[in-house]
């Protein structure tokens, strides 16, 4: 674009290119900024302790922690379990299918929202405890 060589070709309509380029970049930046505001584009991590101490936020949350052993209960499609960060425990309920790695002591991330003492998850991710060091 920094062509300085003079040729017999008539001078190109250079401002047009720059204005066009600026418009394109602005549009693309706009698309990225707009996409960041889409529901579910961004979700905050939260720990059981933060939830238990009332630091709950509105909107999409990700509750990260470890599944309390022997806390998993299944009732039809509904799965209920406790998640802990070694300090507080939070009850999670979900009707979503559970991943294969979900079991006692699995490290999990539950996506959903919090209300009246229960975290309602629409999706749960799990890491198998034997393969992953417990680190959140």
């Amino acid at each position: 674009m920094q062509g300085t060589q003079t040729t017999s070709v008539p001078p190109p309509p250079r401002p047009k290119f720059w204005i066009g380029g600026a418009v394109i970049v602005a549009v693309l930046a706009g698309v990225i900024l707009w996409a960041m505001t889409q529901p579910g584009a961004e979700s905050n991590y939260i720990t059981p302790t933060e939830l238990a101490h009332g630091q709950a936020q509105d909107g999409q949350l990700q509750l990260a922690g470890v599944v309390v052993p022997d806390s998993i209960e299944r009732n039809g499609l509904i799965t209920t379990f406790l998640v802990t960060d070694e300090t507080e425990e939070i009850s999670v309920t979900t009707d979503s299918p559970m991943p294969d790695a979900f079991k006692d002591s699995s490290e999990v991330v539950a996506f959903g929202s919090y209300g009246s003492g229960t975290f309602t998850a629409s999706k749960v991710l799990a890491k198998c405890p034997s393969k992953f060091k417990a680190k959140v």
Partner: protein
Amino acid sequence: MTSLAGFGVPSLLAALFFAGVSLVLCLVGATRSSERATAAGRRAMAMCFAATGLAVVALLTALFAHDFSLAYVAKYSSRSLSGPYMFGALWGGMEGSLLFWTLLLTGFSTVALERARASTPRLVAWAGAVLAGVACFFLMLLVLPESPFTALLPVPADGTGLNPLLQSPGMLIHPPLLYTGFVGFSIPFAFAMAALLSKRLDASWFTSTRRWTLFAWSALSIGIVLGGAWAYTELGWGGYWAWDPVENASFMPWLTATAFLHSVVIQEKRQMLKVWNVSLILLTYALAVFGTFLTRSGILSSIHTFTEGPIGKWFLPFLALMLLGGLGIVLARLNELKSENRFDHLMSRESAFLANNVLFVAAAFAVLWGTIYPILAEVTSGVRLSVGPPFFNSVFIPLGLAIIGLTGIGPLISWKRMSKGAFGRVVRVPLAMGSVTILGLFISGVRSVGALLAFGLCAFTAGAILGEFSRGSRVYRTRYDVGPIRALTATIDRNRRRYGGYIVHLGVVLIVIGLAGGAFKTERHALLSKGESMSVGGYTLTYRELRQSSSPEKQINTAVVDVASDGHDQGSIYPQRNFHLAQRQPQSEVAIRTGPIEDLYVVITSFDQDGDAALRAFVNPLTWWIWVGAGVMLSGMTILLSSPGPARVRARVPREIREPAAATR
């Protein structure tokens, strides 16, 4: 001990030594213009490759001999692991995959430097130095913090075993292809840096490495698709792409490499965009290394991050050095990198290529933004968050639509400038095809604007590409009086770069059709007792029974599910939910009935003692076309790769000129 594991550490030390020797000799060769030093540097690189190969052999024999005195073998394999998956274990963990990376790097470097001796002798010294420098870094990692040959005491009786998810044929091909792609970009990167360092900034650095770029790009493309196919058939959530950070890590260099493949054509034909091209290959390689770093550092939580290691603090300085050094040398050479031509007109092939580049780089930036935004947010404000698929989908639907439309328009526009009338003539038929498609879909009840645009643009672009084929073969037919098939194959054969590229584009169109089909997917999740039915997207699924059996590795639970569609019996499908004994982990085996119109995809998510089973069923329209499109892309890539290189193009001139030229080589 029955294995050659004892050779591991000495081999790695020898490889590091030879990489260091190669670096020094190549630097001497470059700065003193000594061909002898450069030749010795090349041989040192070959020795480095041989030593790395010996280390790989050492690790493989240890894996096959179940030598659990090595921590790596104990962690990633077990006695019950079957033969082929020992290779999977080679790259199943961080240390092994770094070793594999280094093997590819030194191997590719050896071959590329040897071949470049004839085509670009003046770039070899600097390119050798750059490649040896990279090899030194990876070998240092393997010798110091990430040795695959670390001993384990006490020696366990059996290993933990490879994650059952990784015990799938796809996982034997997907990681090596991704690594081949990542590492393959080392070659064009090294020659670009060599061109900058030696101030030989003509087109030779990318024309002589074009096959490497294409090869790396093809491997990365197919590797990414195979990763998607693996996720689709193994993970059981009904999709193939989750915008996982590690998926993104492979996608970013692919996007910038795609931009690079297109923009070097402008430099080749019009001697423009020189700064842009060296920057793009630098960025591509940096993203490839960043991808390796993301995968292996544990900086982002992801299902792919099987190991969390301390190598972040090694990778980041390396990456910073590479980027800053690369950018520094580009800036120092700005004067030599001036364009020799200008953009003549907005309606020109150059502008179309430039628009392609802007879109691909913007796409790469968007992925990068979504991938590192959580890190930035945590570092700057302490907030832990993640960016999810809604962000990426919102960005990629408009960008993807623009790219697919441009894929159709670009090849129709001529270089320098095109009159509106001429453009109108070539665009008429494709435009009609696109409009008819949109109209037809609208009448048949499709109302999603995104889907209408996607299918319309796909029809437009397919029409444009097929038009190119028909124009090309018609010219050939009128000249040589042959049948249409002969004319078509001869047209493709005589201009493999052009038509190979079109075939790749056609594959992309098919893939986009498959992706757009995702807009119409349906999903049901239900708890069924024996004999009960659920319906999903026109199918009625009736759960008959749960069959239980067992093998030495796992307990197998197979559900028998009868499929009926519009009242017609269509046989049964058999999803499984198995319990792997060694890993004490359940794993679902998806039942998929696939076809060009739609896939029926059924998973058991749980079952109880009474035999009641929770079934999750998806109907995924058009997903089949993604894999077909990838196959079409692969055939186009094969044609592109088989196109004559720069040396052979010269050899195609008449024989009387070719003979003496061949004699001097």
